[in-house]
């Protein structure tokens, strides 16, 4: 992916040299046309076209923001309820992610989701131990993590 971005920059500079115009407008024009050329020639790269990855990263960022707001509303409800009726506990979650940065992003996301906080990642990077504020909806939380977060992270790293 980094190679494709670099190539696109390179094409933009070639456009600037060809048109003998060294303004930022010329750079953006060159970047745009270079992107089109790279899209046309995408089957020669060994990864997919990099704009799809960029869109996936943006999606992940939006998930981060919306989860942060949701988590705060959930915590707010627990704190301001008159009686403490929650049932905290620690549960284990198997993860399919392998690379270090993926697991870091996943545990940051889990920390920001409603009522969950990562305590420990096991030695072999396969299990996350998560402290949940309300253990009753663990299965729900597990499904959420599996379906939305892991999927979004995989989408970025593919």
């Amino acid at each position, binding site marked *: 992916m980094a190679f494709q971005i670099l190539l696109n920059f390179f094409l933009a500079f070639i456009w600037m040299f060809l048109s003998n115009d060294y303004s930022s407008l010329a750079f953006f024009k060159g970047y745009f046309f270079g992107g089109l050329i790279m899209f046309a020639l995408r089957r020669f790269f060994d990864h997919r076209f990099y704009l799809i990855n960029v869109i996936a990263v943006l999606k992940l960022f939006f998930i981060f923001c919306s989860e942060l707001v949701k*988590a705060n509303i959930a915590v707010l409800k*627990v704190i301001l309820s008159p009686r403490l009726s929650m049932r905290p506990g620690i*549960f*284990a979650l198997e993860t399919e992610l392998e690379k270090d940065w993926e697991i870091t992003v996943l545990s940051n996301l889990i920390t920001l989701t409603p009522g969950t906080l990562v*305590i*420990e990642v096991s030695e072999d990077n396969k299990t996350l*131990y998560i402290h949940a*504020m309300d*253990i009753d909806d663990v299965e729900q939380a597990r499904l959420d993590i599996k379906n939305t977060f892991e999927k979004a992270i995989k989408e970025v790293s593919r």
Partner: protein
Amino acid sequence: MIEISKFIVGFLILLGALFSLIAAIGVVRLPDTYTRNHAASKSATLGVISILLGLFMYYLLIDHHANARILLGIIFVFLTSPVAGHLIMRAAYNSGVPLWEKSVRDDLKKARKVEKSR
């Protein structure tokens, strides 16, 4: 226009202050280290972020001056506070701070036992 921007700024800053207050109440009210850490690491993050965002909006909309340092501050808080929460949690667990009596489940304890018996 200036009224609308004042409204946005005021709303963001008040919201941030409210979240910080709720985080503080949570730290006092919740029963054990772990649940307190939930309140502190989540609500305080959003509180600080929205106060900083309100400040950024104030400079942008009223003084017409984009202050990039505030945006960097938001990014740093956003990235570091979950990690800080995780580290405090882990240190507490490893030094043997007990869970609340009403906690129902502890998978990590089982895993530790298996590890020791090996």
